[in-house]
């Protein structure tokens, strides 16, 4: 039996959920809005967390930043799980073709031993930097307040694992999948003087508890220095050894960084504009971490860029300062 349904002219009782109507009026909601706004519990929590008994399970007091509305921190990319995964899947398909191209032609393995060692020394240890960023991003996603910030932080956590694995693949393309380049890079990360100051700051972030400070230090300051330094300046210097293959692999990281920066900037700009106290707090964090991270990067940058190092550092710091000013911060 076919069921006849008179659906023509059936007007919905309502166009969207009540919490969305109160924010945006009685009109159809986007999928980003449905998946994001007001989803996290805010009231009537039952138990004191055994791991933080003086606060609630979700508690706005886990950062010194105060927002009138935590859902003001929206993601301009409008990512929810579905469009996030399909976007990343598509990007991965594109980079897979490059990886395949480089692998089939042995483009990294055919570099001179010196060039290969320079990449292992200067790029492959960054897989550990990404794993550190994964930890820090997970901290924001776990202890942040409001789905608007924690959902994209979750996606960023996943992104950082993806980037760590992408950099690991560069190592495997150099060592012919033996894993020797990865072992060498780990030893550099944990023991070589060039990398210790940066690892020191990454570990300092692991014990930083204010999740918004972690957000600022990792995603704004550290990434704003590391990404252009390594994937533009140092990439250029290593490319001088004849490796455009490396540039095509690094480009994937840079494109991701540019996309993500849109989200970071929107969050910082909105939070800083919310109150003078927020602006002072965030500006202070940027200043503090800039002053820690810039010297921490000096030895490895010096090693690779030699007398170009100071110019490169100065240029990424100037770009960070300009970006901070544009976001309404005062350093």
């Amino acid at each position, binding site marked *: 039996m076919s069921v006849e349904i008179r659906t023509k002219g059936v007007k919905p009782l309502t166009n969207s959920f009540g919490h969305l109507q109160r924010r945006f009026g009685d009109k159809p909601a986007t999928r980003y809005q449905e998946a994001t706004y007001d989803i*996290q519990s805010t009231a009537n929590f039952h138990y004191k967390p055994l*791991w933080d008994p003086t606060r609630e399970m979700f508690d706005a007091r886990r950062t010194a930043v105060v927002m009138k509305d935590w859902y003001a921190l929206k993601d301009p990319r409008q990512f929810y799980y579905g469009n996030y995964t399909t976007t990343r899947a598509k990007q991965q398909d594109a980079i897979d073709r490059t990886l395949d191209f480089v692998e089939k032609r042995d483009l990294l393995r055919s570099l001179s031993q010196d060039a290969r060692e320079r990449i292992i020394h200067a790029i492959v240890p960054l897989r550990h930097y990404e794993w550190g960023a994964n930890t820090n991003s997970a901290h924001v996603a776990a202890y942040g307040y409001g789905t608007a910030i924690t959902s994209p932080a979750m996606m960023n956590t996943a992104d950082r694992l993806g980037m760590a694995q992408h950099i690991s693949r560069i190592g495997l393309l150099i060592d012919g999948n033996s894993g020797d380049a990865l072992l060498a890079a780990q030893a550099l990360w944990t023991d070589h003087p060039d990398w210790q100051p940066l690892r020191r700051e990454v570990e300092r972030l*692991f014990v930083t508890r204010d999740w918004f400070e972690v957000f600022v230090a990792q995603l704004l300051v550290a990434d704003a220095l590391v990404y252009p330094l390594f994937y533009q300046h140092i990439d250029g210097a290593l490319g001088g050894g004849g490796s455009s293959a490396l540039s095509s692999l690094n480009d994937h990281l840079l494109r991701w960084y540019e996309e993500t920066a849109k989200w970071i900037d929107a969050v910082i700009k909105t939070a800083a504009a919310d109150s003078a106290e927020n602006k002072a707090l965030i500006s202070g964090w940027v200043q503090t971490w800039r002053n820690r991270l810039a010297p921490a990067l000096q030895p490895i940058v010096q090693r690779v860029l030699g007398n170009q190092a100071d110019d490169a550092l100065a240029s990424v710091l100037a770009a960070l300062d300009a970006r901070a000013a544009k976001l309404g911060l005062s350093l």
Partner: protein
Amino acid sequence: MAAEGNAKPAKKLNLKENYALLTRGLGWEPSYEKKEDIFRNVDFEGVVIHDWDKWEDPFRLTMDAYWKYQGEKERKLYAIVDAFQQHNGQFNVTDARYVQALKVFINGITELEYDSHRGFNMLAREFPGVGPRIAAQMQSLDELRHATTQIHTISQYAKYFTGMNEFPYQFDRVWYLSIPKSFFEDAVTSGPFEFIVAISFAFEYVLTNLAFMPWMSGAAFNGDMATVSFGFSAQSDEARHMTLGIEVIKFLLEQDPANVPLVQKWIDKWFWRGYRLLSLLATMMDYMLPKRVMAWNEAWEIYYEQNGGALFADLARYGIKPPKRAPETIAEKGHVAHQMWSVFYANRDAVGFQMWLPSDEEMAWMSEKYPDTFDQYYRPRYEYWKAQEAAGTPFKNSTLPQLCQVCQWPCLFTESGDPTTLSLRESEYQGQTFHMCSDGCKDIFDDTPEKYVHAWLPVHQIYQGNCFLPGVDPTAPDFNPMVEALRYMGIKPGVDNGDFKGSADATNWEKWTSRPANIHEGAYTDAVRDTASTADVTARKAG
């Protein structure tokens, strides 16, 4: 082409080697900060881990593979969801009573997926080992997916039916939604090892099939293509989560014998907590699905007694015993659905969905499925209430029920072996008396009273006057405490609650679809044309 000294062809990696190379070496031993300052939550529960690298990664998914695999699933799912919305699929379900079950789902379950996402994120931050952290991250992302896809599919229903429009608000406030809310908050506020045993093992591994199979089949039986689609799409994630659950247990038990009693305590606790939560499904399966799949007692036999029995036989070699209170769940299986429905019916003015008494056809089914209990204890009650309805004096509770301090269900359950005596337990703590519904809940309270005294018991809060919106004046002459408490909870009195017959949902359904709102009772309004289904019911009633 490789440079000199690098001439061997690149090694081919199998999946396991590829995963190991891309994952395992990512972490390092910190030296600038103390490990216990970085991972602060892994020690206080007393679990002993000697070697995190002994963790066998159950998923072996690299991030790129995750994106592609999940992205493909999302493309397929949203194609169906789009089609469902364009074709008004919400009107293809059996009748408008089915939608009442969806209300319980969006209001009570979706936020659990979200809390699970956050809880796993805490593990993703706090576990020192790379393997378990990645597993927790992927599950956290999956749980975010489940919350998201549920919202996106059910939002279509929320536009056409009452009571689904305020799910995050209601989850934090409605009295009976504190049952799921307190369950998950209990887990997230525990330590990381208790959380993962609670959720990954006791809930996902032991009990989740009980939620998935009957509920998904129920959606399929009743024509709910949207729910079937997100449910089955989520199920392939659940398969991974269940693998994680069993891996966690084996890892903990193999690391140190000192972990065995802790794990046993958590299994006992969370089996009981999970059972009490999921027995809400008992009412859904037996009463709310117009076309039923199986009865609760049958589901419990298959998914716990048989499958769980085999599982715990397998874990015996570690010294793990079946959950302490499993015998009570078996003794109750013929009663819980009926006792819960009775309490919801009696309190129908205070719940956010609409209620009905089972039809003759449904009661005949229950007599068959519950030969030892239904006719003796519950049929007479429903027949009495039907007579009361017919006489124009329907039975209603005008007060709210006593809640259990632990599971937060009303104390509605009966003593094992004595279905006419309510099961009530109490414990003293710091000079106060706390009430529990069962020995299982009393065990939990007595083990950690300092945690459970903080429970936000909605009925207590309502009676203490803490559940009114700002500006409400309890001294005003027309002050109605029940109406004000409902408004605080986000339930619209006279719209979201009460009797199904005559409700906006029932009336709109018949107007919009020309089909009966309750397939067992025939048309409530003359908007229903004399279709085959109505004729069937009429014929059956006449017969």
